[in-house]
């Protein structure tokens, strides 16, 4: 039941990120430079101190040391301040990127819902937005900024040593290339596939956990908890392979860092001591040569961490961008949308077929239907016969694969999509309740309506007494657990009625409601008045008598279409 998800390359992912980063590139540049300066202060502090101490040992007049003394103190103070500024600026920038990315994600999901959604399981979607977006934030903070800072500092340090002794500078450069470029680069490349797999597995695990917790009572009731834990354990075993690989890779990089800098010190001694003996360099400078590599330890650690984070954040970025690039099952928005011809539309479907993304065959085939103001349509049929799919096509969630759909003679593809959707009031099956108050659940159908209107519409669906007991601020909880199935359906119905749109699409609005109330609700619904067109999807055969037109569907086709005697 899954569709092929579009594959996104690193290049595409980076391009998308670049478009998000562009407005804040000034901040990023400032952060990189400040970070490099802060690190450089640390290196400068130790190198200058080494010179100071070695020179002092030769017992020169104290005054000749004063510049170095002031320099050492300055480095000591500015390092902390620079780092503080760098952190503030870079984190603010990263959080801005995060906010933008998350919003783009929700915008995209809103565009492709609901037909585009089943491609990912819901828990996985959650993992993608919360987890992956955080990882993308790391790409900036823990990869790009530290790496650019390190490049500046490494170059500066090597250049500084080159003034003292070119050979020692070359040796240090060699060590830095090994521990900052070669090993982390090779590891990053080697880990790319493993990280990708690890991230996929983690997302899978989150989805699995979500599903497990979501139905935990059902699992327990089914006695399938051990089976569930086994599945989780199997997933963990697969995850642990990549965890081990990553641990080993991180260890290799950190070990190489310590080793390379140690060799840096040793090489400085091996090259510097003969230099001192031959008089090529002053003995004091030997201390600077030997101690500078030690001062670079923090920077090298940072590079190792950045390299370890790189494949992971890149993979996360790719997955985030994949969501952003998922095609809309409702087709592209019209280029030059036309407004709705009227708010009392005549909608005509002829020969309409449609399928859900990823389905091999059409779910509905060749449906003809006319909706006009005042008309009442009853849609009957077996479960799975395509009734809800037909509603999805009407709502514009799903683009027909064949046939035509017009409103007042204009093809629907040319109509502004927002305006098109605004024609319909809808109550879905199962009823969707948001985790907020009753009032909020209703109000979004008609923002700005009064409490009196809300009370009236709840009264209309037979929830007057219920409301009197609980009040409009009663929270409905996750899946609306604080209310029964029948109450959920009636709240959803109240919402659709409150919206007061020209067309009402009611998908099994009373399946969980007591029969007596259900009869009354359906009768009320079907007495919608001369302006509203009502489409009732039902399995209650007795409701058929309430329609002007009755469609019976089976296996995606209309098998019987009866028009009632002319009623006035």
């Amino acid at each position, binding site marked *: *039941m899954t569709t092929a998800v579009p594959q996104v390359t690193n290049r595409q992912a980076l391009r998308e990120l670049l478009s998000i980063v562009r407005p804040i590139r000034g901040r990023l540049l400032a952060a990189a430079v400040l970070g490099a300066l802060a690190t450089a202060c640390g290196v400068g502090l130790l190198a200058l*101190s080494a010179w*100071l*101490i070695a020179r*002092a*040992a030769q017992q020169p007049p104290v005054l000749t*040391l004063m510049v170095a003394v002031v320099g050492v*103190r300055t480095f000591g103070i500015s390092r902390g*301040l620079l780092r503080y500024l760098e*952190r*503030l600026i870079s*984190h603010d920038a990263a959080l801005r990127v995060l906010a933008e990315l998350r919003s783009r994600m*929700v915008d995209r999901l*809103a565009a492709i819902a*609901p037909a585009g959604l089943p491609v990912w399981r819901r828990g996985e*979607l*959650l993992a993608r937005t*919360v987890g992956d977006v955080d990882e993308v934030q790391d790409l900036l903070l823990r990869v790009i900024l530290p790496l650019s800072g390190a490049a500046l500092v490494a170059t500066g340090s090597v250049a500084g040593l080159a003034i003292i002794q070119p050979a020692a500078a070359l040796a240090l450069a060699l060590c830095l290339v090994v521990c900052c470029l070669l090993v982390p680069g090779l590891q990053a490349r080697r880990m790319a596939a493993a990280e990708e797999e690890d991230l996929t597995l983690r997302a899978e695990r*989150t989805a699995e956990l*979500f599903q497990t*917790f979501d139905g935990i*009572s059902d699992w*327990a*009731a*089914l006695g399938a908890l051990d*089976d569930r*834990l086994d599945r989780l354990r199997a997933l963990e075993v697969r995850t*642990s392979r990549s965890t081990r690989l990553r*641990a080993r890779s991180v*260890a290799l990089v*950190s*070990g190489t860092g*310590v080793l390379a800098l*140690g060799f840096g*010190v*040793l090489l400085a001694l*091996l090259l510097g*001591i*003969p230099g*001192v003996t031959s008089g090529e360099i002053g*003995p004091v400078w*030997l201390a600077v040569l*030997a101690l500078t590599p030690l001062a670079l330890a923090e920077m090298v650690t940072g590079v190792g961490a950045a390299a370890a984070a790189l494949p992971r954040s890149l993979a996360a970025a790719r997955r985030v961008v994949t969501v952003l690039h998922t095609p809309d099952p409702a087709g592209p928005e019209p280029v030059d949308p036309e407004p709705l011809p009227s708010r009392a539309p005549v909608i005509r479907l002829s020969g309409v077929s449609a399928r859900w993304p990823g389905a091999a065959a059409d779910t509905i085939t060749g449906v003809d239907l006319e909706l006009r103001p005042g008309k009442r349509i009853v849609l009957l049929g077996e*479960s*799975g016969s395509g009734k809800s799919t037909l509603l999805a096509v009407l709502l514009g*969630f799903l683009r027909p694969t064949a046939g035509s759909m017009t409103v007042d003679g204009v093809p629907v593809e040319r109509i502004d999509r927002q305006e098109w959707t605004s024609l319909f*009031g809808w109550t*879905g099956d*199962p009823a969707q*309740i948001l985790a907020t108050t009753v009032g909020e659940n209703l109000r*979004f*159908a008609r923002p700005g309506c009064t409490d009196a209107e809300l009370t009236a519409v709840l009264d209309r669906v037979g929830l007057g007494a219920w409301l009197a007991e609980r009040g409009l601020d009663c929270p409905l909880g*996750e*899946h609306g657990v604080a209310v029964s*199935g029948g109450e959920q359906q009636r709240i959803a119905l109240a919402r659709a009625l409150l919206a007061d749109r020209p067309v009402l699409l009611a998908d099994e609005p009373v399946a*969980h*409601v*007591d*029969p007596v109330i259900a009869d009354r609700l359906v009768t009320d619904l079907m007495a919608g008045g001369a302006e509203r067109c009502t489409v009732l999807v039902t*399995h209650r055969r007795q409701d058929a008598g309430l329609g002007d037109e009755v469609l019976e569907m089976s296996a995606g086709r209309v098998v019987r279409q009866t028009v009632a005697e002319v009623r006035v």
Partner: protein
Amino acid sequence: MRPFEPRLVRLAAGIRGLLAVSLLLGVAIALATIVQAVLLAKILAEVIIGGVDLAQVTGRIGWLLVVVLLRAGLSAASDNLTARSAARIGVDLRARMVRQAADLGPARRGDQATAELSTLAGTGMDALEAYLSGYLPQLFLSVLVPFSVLWFLFASDLTSGLIVLGTLPLIPLFMALIGWYTQRQTRAKWRTLTVLSNHFADVVAGLPTLKAFGRAKFQAGEVRRVTGAYRTTTMATLRVAFLSSLVLELLATLSVALVAVAVGLRLVSGNLTLEVGLAVLILAPEAYLPLRTLGARFHSAADGVESARRIVEFLDTPVPRAGTRTDVATEPRILATDLVVGYPDAPVLGPLDLTLEPGRFLVVTGASGVGKSTLLLTLAGLLPPLSGALTVATVDGGRTALSEVDPALRRRRISLVGQRPFLVAGSVRENLLLGQDGPVDEALLWRALAAADAAEWVRLLPQGWDTILADGGSGLSAGQRQRLVVARALAAPTQVLLLDEPTSHLDTESELRVLAGIREVSAGRTVVLVTHRRAPLDLADELLDLGSGTPVDTAVSTGLSGGTR
């Protein structure tokens, strides 16, 4: 911030090993650091002051090489071992969380919403693992290394030792002061993150409805707003957290600068040898480095400790004690006396008396919201009764409370079909066999499918009953999902079947077929069927009408008691 959550030691088995390894490696690393500094200082002093050439220090350089190799090895081993054991601890704790959620059952409501729990077991556990592998070993180093360095400094140069001793304690002091403030901020941040993830999950789930009412864009805006708020609160936390690392950096680097200048001036006056001076200079930053690294990892650690606290609290939530009795009769008679059902803070229905005779078909009706589903959860043993007795017959003819019965046995006796058809990602066949072990009787499965009016369309699925269903059975209609879970309950070898509105999504003809099927296949078993529709009434041996609800404080006789057959 409390640097460590002590209750973890009790809950996570592998943590003692992790602590021991961190301690041992920490000591080794501290010693190697000191030896390296001393060797390097000796070599430099001999060359700079003594004017010796390379040949005379080759031995020492050789030893230096040995120490460098040792340090590299220790550093790699520490990273590798801690990451592995942290991952193992994470695996263990996740499994415990699932078991705990199962033990808590449906009584866990509201405050531990599913998305929140998944975030805690996913992202939260990742934070905990990062804390265990990154922060905890560092915590050891930050105690061991400064102490070793101080010991060396006092032994070789008192002044420098005093400077470092004077400034070092300021670091944990400031960390504690600022950490105390940050902890509150971190909790606030976690709350925002939780709101963010609940809000997001809710918006995604509700997208179709939101979109239909033209509110999807608005909700996307809401997510934008909430994320914006997240940035504001996070930056507020970070400004303070970074202030802490600013103070730490200033303290550390300034102290090093002080030590360097003081050493330099005493060298000029000849009160100190270069060898000691250089060793002090190399070691002074090492005393501060572990604490500074600790500070740099502070907020990730704060996340980790906060996750640890929440995980531990969740795992420590008292669960209803599981029963142990296994002597329940094979065809148990279930008896409820003065039973009040509901949630700890919200009684829903009762008191009522009820008898479930083996082989009888009881239909429960009543207004929506009266507590029919809550009653079924209680009868299934998933929700403890608030008061009154709910007992089940034992083999010796006596009775025992349902809550005393071993849960595994209870599940083999009683199965429940909830209102939300519960299917998992997997094939139709896997879904039918959920919770069953032992040999599979395919004929029985098909018979159950046929009884649930599902055999026909299951055969027509692309791969028949091997067709894979996506998450929650999406792709099937509500009625199809419902019929599959009914078939599953019918195929299970349980004696008591509790069905909550099993036909609410079916059209009348299909409903009649399913009901007839249930009646036929469940002959000889006890069935409790909750409904608000008329068709099931004809099947009932007995009827229980809960009306529009019974006030919880007044005893109402339901007028129903066990009849004879």
